[in-house]
């Protein structure tokens, strides 16, 4: 029972931090479970993937109400993302644990760099006033801010977006983190989707992406209910607090916290991968 409570507390912490940064809790949950509790990496990834589904389903409902989510764009990108997740899941269950840990450590470092770039890019990528033609009807609009400003956008570079979404899917499938940390920058920086719409659309997408890979882990016997249940409830509770805290903290402080935590976790994952911690 004590372990269940510990898993719940850790998942709540991961959910709070992940939601504050718009990344979901999986990015933090997997390394903490592996490094602090000695949970086998694939079992931690499976728990994270299922928690990501719960978090996505829970969070997406609100975004759908506000119409921030672009359902048509999500569906198109999901084709390559879910395919990537399926491949990533199958690869992860067959890779040696050390290699998987090394790859995860690299991913944490890449996400930290992407987060810094995203912070630097805020304000640089303004929404186009005259959207380009939209032959596939992938454009969206939503009402933003207290002034009720209507934001219209048309995603461009669809092919690049599809290719990069495959990578996001593979990462999600291999590491159980959802595709958010990668698909949000892809939509925002490459496809020109406003950050709010990109984050909401990604939140919807990661539910399906993570469920596809979770089914692969389930078949391979890596789903441990004793870890999954407290993780699911913890992530949902943590996400609730994360939303509130994110509104109170300055974005730059959030990024500093994020980069510090990710760097520490990345170094420890590398050390664990080469057996220096055992």
């Amino acid at each position: 029972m004590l372990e269940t409570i510990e898993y719940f507390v850790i998942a709540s912490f991961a959910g709070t931090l992940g939601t504050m940064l718009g990344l979901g809790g999986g990015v933090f949950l997997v390394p903490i479970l592996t490094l602090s509790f000695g949970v086998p990496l694939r079992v931690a990834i499976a728990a994270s993937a299922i928690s990501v589904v719960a978090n996505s389903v829970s969070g997406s409902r609100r975004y759908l109400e506000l119409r921030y989510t672009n359902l048509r764009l999500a569906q198109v990108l999901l084709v390559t993302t879910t395919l990537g997740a399926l491949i990533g899941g199958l690869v992860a269950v067959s890779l040696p644990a050390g290699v998987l840990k090394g790859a995860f450590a690299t991913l944490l470092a890449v996400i930290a760099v992407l987060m810094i770039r995203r912070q630097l890019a805020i304000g640089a990528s303004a929404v186009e006033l005259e959207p380009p033609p939209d032959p596939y009807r992938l454009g969206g609009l939503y009402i933003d801010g207290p002034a009720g400003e209507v934001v219209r956008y048309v995603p461009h570079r669809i092919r690049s977006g599809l290719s990069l979404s495959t990578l996001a899917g593979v990462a999600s499938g291999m590491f159980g983190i959802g595709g958010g940390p990668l698909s949000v920058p892809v939509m925002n920086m490459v496809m020109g989707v406003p950050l709010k719409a990109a984050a909401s659309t990604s939140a919807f997408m990661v539910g399906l992406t993570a469920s596809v890979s979770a089914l692969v882990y389930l078949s391979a016997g890596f789903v441990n209910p004793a870890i999954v249940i407290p993780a699911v409830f913890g992530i949902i509770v943590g996400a609730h607090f994360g939303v509130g805290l994110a509104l109170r903290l300055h974005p730059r402080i959030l990024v500093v916290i994020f980069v510090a935590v990710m760097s520490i976790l990345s170094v420890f994952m590398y050390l664990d991968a080469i057996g220096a911690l055992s």
Partner: protein
Amino acid sequence: MSGRRERALERLQRRRLTILYRVVGRILTTGLWFSIGFLAIGFLLAILQREPLSEELTPLRDIPSAIVDIEPGGFIDLGLVALLLTPAAAVVATLTAALRQRDWPFVGVGIMLVVIILLSLITGLI
């Protein structure tokens, strides 16, 4: 096409999209409460029966009998399966909407997604 007809079509499409967003939102809400409810029942049963939470899943074919026997594992498994299938249900809803609107490119996209989900189900549930 006259301007009036074009505007009417646009209004219709907007109304259909609003309905779709509402339906998808309801599917996610129902799936979430259903799965969390079963996970919570399984967890509470384990506490009441003074059993530690199982470290392995009950095989899917044994879920109905486990639920009849009020075993925590049956409820937990059902909750997990419901959770994992909730996003897929949302995709089916969008596919149905595309079919109704004869939006063939999106029917194709929806079918591709359903095929990938089925592939993962085949990998996952057999």
